[in-house]
């Protein structure tokens, strides 16, 4: 029951993200270069989420658990690494604004864009690490 609930919740979030991206794409406001990144990254996250959900469903249909001790361990390990990556991403956005925006004339990231970049990239790192760890075993 808990597994099915998590799958439904994951699918719901993925659909919600897709709807938001669609509204953003076909909405009245114009799209700038940096906004394209903020669209592509959520799409990658959605594809990643669908892959994980599909994998879980496949296991449940086969009568196997969707998450076991190894999956849970790697899930948290990826989360810990993604947390460290998030700190570096946050520092990176700060450096970007200082080095590239102030000194080299690149467009400056506003507060909203910084938050979006941090949240989306950390999510991306978390997904990528989970996928990598699951393919590597554990050692």
């Amino acid at each position: 029951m808990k597994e099915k609930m998590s799958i439904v919740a994951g699918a719901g979030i993925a659909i919600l993200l897709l709807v938001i991206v669609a509204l953003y794409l076909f909405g009245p406001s114009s799209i700038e270069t940096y906004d394209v990144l903020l669209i592509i990254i959520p799409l990658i996250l959605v594809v990643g989420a669908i892959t994980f959900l599909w994998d879980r469903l496949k296991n449940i249909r086969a009568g196997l658990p969707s998450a076991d001790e190894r999956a849970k361990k790697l899930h948290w390990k990826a989360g810990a690494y993604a947390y460290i990556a998030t700190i570096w991403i946050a520092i990176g956005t700060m450096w970007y604004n200082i080095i590239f925006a102030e000194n080299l004339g690149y467009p400056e990231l506003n507060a909203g864009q910084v938050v979006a970049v941090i949240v989306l990239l950390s999510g991306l790192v978390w997904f990528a690490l989970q996928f990598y760890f699951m393919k590597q075993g554990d050692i």
Partner: protein
Amino acid sequence: MTQEDLARKVGVRRETILFIEKGKYNPSLKLAHDISRALQTTIEEIFIFDD
């Protein structure tokens, strides 16, 4: 017995059994115990720990 059969018996994903077989994952003591019981043998018979 297939990997999937063993996975179903001990309640883990098939990939976990695969990685244990390949020596790429060290199972918990509980899982090692469950596997040995499912295979009707002892932990020492299945797992070899190198120093």
